[in-house]
């Protein structure tokens, strides 16, 4: 019997303080929303989805109240259709491509409809997929994030023996440890994983490949290996004071929120998040939703140059987040080992060329600092794999097959792309599986 990871979640988790920003539709809401869909021919939404879910079809199936059919349409294209329904930045993907936008009408709420179909089908306990006829071939998956799970699910459906190795106690990668709780709760992510397990894949947690289990051993036991280990720890700012209590990496902090209640928002008066990407925006919104009185995002470049989505930044501003643009930290200030503020300096210059404005230093008072300057690249494991080609810390793969320069290894997800969305990892993990399948069959 497969392990139930939902039960391994600690109960008092900070994430439970959040409210969902897009709650589950009821039937009436879903059917009337689905009825607005035009059922476009050669639909742009379907093109915009990296996993190319047949959006018009699944929406039509909701309209006709065939929820099982709808969920099957979604999941056969995207095995993590539930997570994606919650986590995808639909504004720039399917909903952004909806033709309704062109007429000045509200785009169809594709994400919420997708959630409605899959969540209801899952509530009935339906397993849509089963293991294919056994091929006698074995594949190991390193990392149980979206890339690894998507690859594993596809390989199992094609009849291969699949074991997923995960260093953490609970699987899911960033999908279960990092996605903002108002979008997706950990238990929802883990419930989805339970359905993926039931296709017939084994997930072994608490095993770090290359440390607890040697690669050479893995190579012996499996015909092919897929690497989906994502990225590493939060990058350092490399300024004095980073080790003060009250200063931490953003991904680590969000993982705490999603796993336990060690974070005490009540003790904080003013929080600062340093960075301009989506993770930084997620973090300021999370802090605000946790009722921290003053929350400030500090970004060294201009607003226009932020890599985070504008719609998310606008929401943060509406929620009361303050912004300091063209400002960069020089030192985290503290007393008695605790953060008391940041020494900042203004910057100038646009489009890459950045310089500090001399004499513009000032002290910003705050008692909590999150560093959102990106995640480190994982190089430890890579160096143990023979012939692996690494560029800028990322694994180099064939663009269609996702095979690495070492033919036994395939890779996809953040460790290849440098960090995209859940849905991209799902799409690429599946493509890799298809190519691995071809290779495994040839080897028979």
């Amino acid at each position: 019997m497969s392990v139930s990871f939902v039960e391994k979640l600690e109960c008092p988790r900070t994430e439970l303080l959040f409210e969902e920003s897009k709650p589950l539709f009821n039937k009436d809401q879903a059917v009337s929303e689905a009825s607005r869909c035009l059922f476009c021919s050669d639909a742009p939404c379907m093109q915009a989805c990296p996993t190319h879910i047949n959006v018009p079809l699944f929406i039509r199936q909701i309209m006709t109240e065939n929820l099982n059919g709808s969920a099957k349409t979604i999941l056969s294209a995207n095995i993590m259709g539930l997570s994606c329904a919650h986590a995808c930045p639909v504004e720039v993907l399917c909903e952004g491509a909806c033709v309704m936008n062109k007429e000045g009408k509200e785009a169809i709420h594709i994400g919420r409809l997708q959630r409605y179909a899959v969540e209801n089908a899952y509530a009935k306990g339906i397993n849509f997929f089963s293991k294919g006829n056994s091929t006698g071939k074995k594949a190991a998956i390193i990392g149980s994030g979206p890339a690894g799970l998507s690859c594993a699910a596809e390989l199992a459906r094609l009849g291969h023996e699949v074991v997923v190795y995960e260093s953490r106690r609970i699987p899911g990668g960033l999908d279960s440890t990092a996605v903002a709780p108002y979008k997706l709760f950990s238990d929802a992510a883990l419930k989805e994983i339970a359905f993926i397990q039931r296709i017939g894949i084994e997930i072994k947690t608490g095993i770090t490949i290359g440390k607890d289990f040697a690669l050479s051993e893995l190579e012996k036991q499996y015909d092919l290996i897929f690497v989906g280990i994502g990225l590493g720890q939060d990058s350092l700012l490399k300024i004095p004071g980073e080790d003060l209590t009250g200063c931490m990496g953003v991904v680590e902090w969000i993982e705490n929120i999603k796993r336990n209640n060690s974070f005490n928002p009540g003790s904080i008066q003013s929080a600062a998040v340093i960075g301009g990407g989506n993770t930084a925006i997620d973090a300021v919104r999370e802090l605000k939703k946790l009722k921290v009185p003053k929350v400030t995002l500090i970004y060294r470049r201009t607003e226009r140059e932020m890599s985070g989505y504008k719609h998310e930044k606008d929401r943060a501003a509406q929620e009361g987040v303050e912004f300091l643009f063209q400002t960069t930290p020089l030192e985290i200030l503290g007393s008695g080992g605790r953060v008391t503020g940041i020494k900042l300096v203004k910057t100038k210059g646009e489009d890459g060329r950045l310089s500090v404005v001399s004499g513009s230093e000032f002290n910003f008072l705050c008692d909590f600092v999150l560093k959102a300057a990106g995640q480190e690249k994982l190089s430890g494991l890579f160096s143990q794999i023979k012939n692996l080609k690494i560029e800028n810390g990322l694994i180099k793969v064939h663009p269609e097959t996702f095979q690495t320069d070492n033919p036994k290894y395939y890779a996809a997800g953040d460790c290849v792309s440098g960090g995209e969305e859940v849905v991209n990892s799902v799409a690429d993990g599946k493509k890799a599986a298809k190519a691995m399948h071809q290779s495994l069959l040839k080897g028979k």
Partner: protein
Amino acid sequence: MADISINFAGIKSPNPFWLASGPLTNTAYQVMKAFDLGWGGAVWKTVGIPIVNVYSRYGGLTYHGNRLVGLNNNELITDRSYEENYKEIYQVKKKYPKNALLVSLMFETKQEWKEHVKRAIDSGADGLELNFGCPHGMCERGMGSAVGQEPKVLKEVTSWVLEYSTVPVLVKLTPNISDIREPGMAAQEIGAHGVSLINTIKSIIGIDVDSFSPVPSVGGKGTNGGYCGPAVKPIALHMVGALSRMPGWKTLISGIGGIQTWRDAVEFILLGAASLQVCTAAMHYGFRIVEELNQGLSDYMDSKGFKTIEEFRGKAVKNYVEWGDLNLNYRVKAEINPKKCIECQLCVAACDAGGHQCIHTSQNGTRVPYVDQEACIGCNLCSLVCPVEDCITMKEIDLGKPYLTWREYQKTAVS
């Protein structure tokens, strides 16, 4: 401001909107409330030998999330006693002398008809409506649509009523026949003062795919009922039009079937209706909808400069012709306005499947399609599926040829 009052064969009404005989006109409470809110008249729920109803009675057609696009019912005629009905009719008429109050009747024997024509008129009825239209339950007992489907029987029963009645008599027609002109003509020939149409259409609104019972399910079984509401309007319009344009037709028509807005009402009037009856729409939204009906009708008339309803009643009748009288030299072709197009490509799919395979996706990298003007047969399908208003229009093309009907064309083809 336009005068929207009517005089229907002597029955005066402050506006043409009457509640149709049905669940809205069961009691004095309802009819009084309706008159207070602005209804011009009401046709009392059909009085007859009291019956018993089943639970439940209604089934609704929900389409794309829109409820009651059609309604189906298996309600019978009144389930109240004669005494209750006539007493309340009297109360209403006494309190509302200016509103039109008609009483719908359904009986079997001549003796019964005689008695109740008198009792209804004594209670104050301004007119009588003979229910020859109910398509369920009553027809199995030889009444309702069983009468409306047999012109001979219709004539006989109507003649009894005309013999005893001192007020105008309207015959309510059933649409469950192959040619509405036959019962219509029968009613006119025998001297009815008006006809009301349509009553409901025999129908099964749906089957419960889990219990295998028609809906509404009465303990696991269902029956056919009468269909009404917005979905039946096209059928009703045709039947009203078919009577209006029949040579020799002169009887007044009370138009019924799917009327919900002022525009529906105007359409019925343009096809000749002299009063309008509403059932489903008021069941759905309540009596208050009459406000929109009265105001909309009046505003329409003002915008067109019509002072009375008679001024424009029947104006569309002469334009309702046989297919063989249409102009074969009239041409339209579809044209897409690329500025409005939202690139859904529904027109491409529709024309490819059910049109003439002449809308194509552009080569220039946009998703805006174009129409091959040569191949377009002007069928109109694309402009109907296009979700954007006025994006696909049917442009008239002048062939420079005279009006040519199929009849004329055949003659020239033969010679």
